[in-house]
């Protein structure tokens, strides 16, 4: 019999141990769930997607985190949490709609959240109104219906294109100006594609409908169709997801598989520097990163957006339904300041959706580009090496002319700010509906994994079954066969 005292002490002991076991978790939870009161907002974004201060910077200002500068200025504290995939973020918001005030997903996820009513429109921040690039605001947001009257569902943060990053010492842009190039055996074992169906799907679509895309492009160049018509056609083709298309995409990707070095989302950036691969299907921001690293390591890399056209994507700030709109908008407004945008661009390596003269000057400065005045000072011979590049789509009509040195085509600058000719053949990719997503995902499984033939499946199943049965028989051999002897 246990005494009462014993029971009490046992009980206390159990409670203490129980509390001890949960203490660290408990405190972590309480930090995460800090109530949003007064001057505090919770921001949910990608890892390394904001300049949190460079400890080694010489300039004092560059050493302080952008979040701290914001807090000092406005008194609003920012709780910054990160996610690794759009889907992870979506699950989190779905689970707890109050979890945060500001999120930075990609365009298709913004569309999905918008259609499900998870996010709300808010008043357009002043700096976005003033400095936001007309290309993002009018063309892309217009197409996706992001803005309603004077409210917007999103404000652009970073944007870019997709294309081939290649080793320019071994190949030229001509070798890779069709998406189908990496299906050739000369690239065998020397290319990587994205381990992400959405991105890889775009590339496969461009190969499946290569003829159609090129035909439309020629029509556009011969002025048989208008720019708008061409764009609408591109948008339609890049967003095709009917059964026949998915089947063709699967065929193409299965044929590509033996030609690949691997699937990646991150390692391609460095594999191309070490020479493991020669071509990488890359996001423009990663391409710039690799080029910068390559310049230091003595590897000459370049980026090309193939002729058929490509995908243009952006990440933008959206507010979940229950966000603190007032404070969150102040933060977005702050991020849209050209000066802050430049800091983030320098830190992240992607291209800000914010334009404006200050940013234009910074680009001209950084890449030592020529404007019109500089061009006029050149001698006739030197002038031949330069040509005009049109970026007024991004910086507005009065951006002036920028002249580009022939040798720098496909390098950092033209990767970050493609010529308008490239942008014309880029389309955004909309969100797939859930049923299509199931089909596409099953297709992706078949590409990533090995599917055995029916005969092999049956044969192996039978073999395993026999193995298990013989195991059971062996285990019970005494009971099965030796009953008589035992008696």
């Amino acid at each position, binding site marked *: 019999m246990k005494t009462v005292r014993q029971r009490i002490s046992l009980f206390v002991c159990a409670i203490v141990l129980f509390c001890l076991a949960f203490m660290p978790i408990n405190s972590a939870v309480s930090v995460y769930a800090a109530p949003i009161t007064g001057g505090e907002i919770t921001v949910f974004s990608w890892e390394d997607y904001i300049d949190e201060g460079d400890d080694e910077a010489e300039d004092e200002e560059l050493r302080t985190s952008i979040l701290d500068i914001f807090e000092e200025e406005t008194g609003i504290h920012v709780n910054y949490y990160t996610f690794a995939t759009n889907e992870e973020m979506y699950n989190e918001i779905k689970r707890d709609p109050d979890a945060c005030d500001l999120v930075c997903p990609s365009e298709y996820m913004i569309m999905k959240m918008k259609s499900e009513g998870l996010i709300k429109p808010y008043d357009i921040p002043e700096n976005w109104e003033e400095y936001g690039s007309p290309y993002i605001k009018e063309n892309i947001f217009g197409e996706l219906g992001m803005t309603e009257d004077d409210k917007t569902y999103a404000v652009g943060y970073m944007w870019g294109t997709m294309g081939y990053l290649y080793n320019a010492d071994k190949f030229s842009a001509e070798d890779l100006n069709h998406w189908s190039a990496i299906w050739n055996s000369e690239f065998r074992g020397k290319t990587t594609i994205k381990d992400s169906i959405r991105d890889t799907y775009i590339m496969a679509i461009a190969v499946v409908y290569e003829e159609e895309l090129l035909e439309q492009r020629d029509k556009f160049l011969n002025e048989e169709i208008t720019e708008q018509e061409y764009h609408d056609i591109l948008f339609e083709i890049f967003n095709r997801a009917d059964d026949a298309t998915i089947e063709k995409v699967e065929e193409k990707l299965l044929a590509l598989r033996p030609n690949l070095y691997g699937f990646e989302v991150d390692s391609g950036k460095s594999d191309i520097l070490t020479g493991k691969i020669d071509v990488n299907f890359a996001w423009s921001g990663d391409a710039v990163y690799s080029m910068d690293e390559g310049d230091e390591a003595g590897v000459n890399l370049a980026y090309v957006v193939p002729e058929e056209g490509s995908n243009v994507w952006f990440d933008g700030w959206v507010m979940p339904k229950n966000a603190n709109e007032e404070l969150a908008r102040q933060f977005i407004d702050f991020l849209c300041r050209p000066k802050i945008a430049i800091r983030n661009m320098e830190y992240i390596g992607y291209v800000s959706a914010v334009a404006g003269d200050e940013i234009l000057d910074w680009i001209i400065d950084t890449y030592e580009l020529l404007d019109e005045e500089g061009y006029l000072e050149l001698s006739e011979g030197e002038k031949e090496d330069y040509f005009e590049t049109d970026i007024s789509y991004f910086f507005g009509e009065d951006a002036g002319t920028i002249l580009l040195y022939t040798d720098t085509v496909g390098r950092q600058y033209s990767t970050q700010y493609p010529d308008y000719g490239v942008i014309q053949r880029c389309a955004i990719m909309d969100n797939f509906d859930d049923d299509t997503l199931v089909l596409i995902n099953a297709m992706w499984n078949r590409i990533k994994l090995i599917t055995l033939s029916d005969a092999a*499946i049956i044969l192996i199943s039978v073999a395993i079954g026999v193995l298990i049965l013989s195991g059971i028989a062996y285990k019970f051999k005494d009971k099965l066969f030796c009953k008589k002897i035992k008696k």
Partner: protein
Amino acid sequence: MKDVNAVEKKNAASRRRFGFSRQSLCIPYGVFLLFFVLFPLLLVAYYAFTSADGTFTFANFADFFADKTKVSTLLISIIVCILVTALCLVIAYPVAYILAKMKKSVAFIFLMLFITPMWINFVLRAMAMKELLSLIGIPLGNFANIIGLVYDFLPFMVLPLYSTLIKMDKSLAEAAADLGAGKVKVFTSITLPLSMPGVISGAMMVFLPVMSCYVITDTFSGATGFSVVGKLISWCFLGENGTLSNINGGATIALVLLVIMFLTMWLTGGFKDEDGARGTNL
């Protein structure tokens, strides 16, 4: 007898005074078991038998077994597990045998050579191995996958084998030799049967984790290599590659995997730990 009883009574009395019996020490572990083993297991079972909106269903299992790609992956995983276990055994047995015969001080050094790499995280080891393979010129793919898995799980086979072999009564082998058994005969009728517990516990240490060890196959498979079932589960839960997570589907695969593991354990008598060889594994 009376004395013993008296001592025991005294002990019991002192124990009672502190209100603390030896069993109380099990409470932390019991709590841990309850919340981090039993409860999650029940959750897995719950999700496996419910649909996304929480109603009872067998559809998850039907979906899994109707999908040829997923079933293929499961079967391939089982074959790979058998293959890797066999390879590990073939490599590890002679090593453990030689180590057990060595002088203890020398054996210790070699044993450390096996154990120290295990102090490094296996993801890092896999990445280093990948670089090494590319240096030698072995392309990524199925073959590299097998090398990676064997490399990673070899120590788990060597250690139980070694600890069984070293505990073995040498006089039995000597007696057999004295009675005229040749070296081969001694090995097949004395050493091998006596080391079976080590073989089985080593095989379990390799066979079961390989099923879910998708980090290794991710590293080594390149574009054409196989993946193990663990990959499917991680896809379902993390919602990788642009799709949303499917917790119910993931739980289903996890449950199938659990059943396979329990079956293997049960058939090999893995639940009984008579020889204590398992306890010596790191």
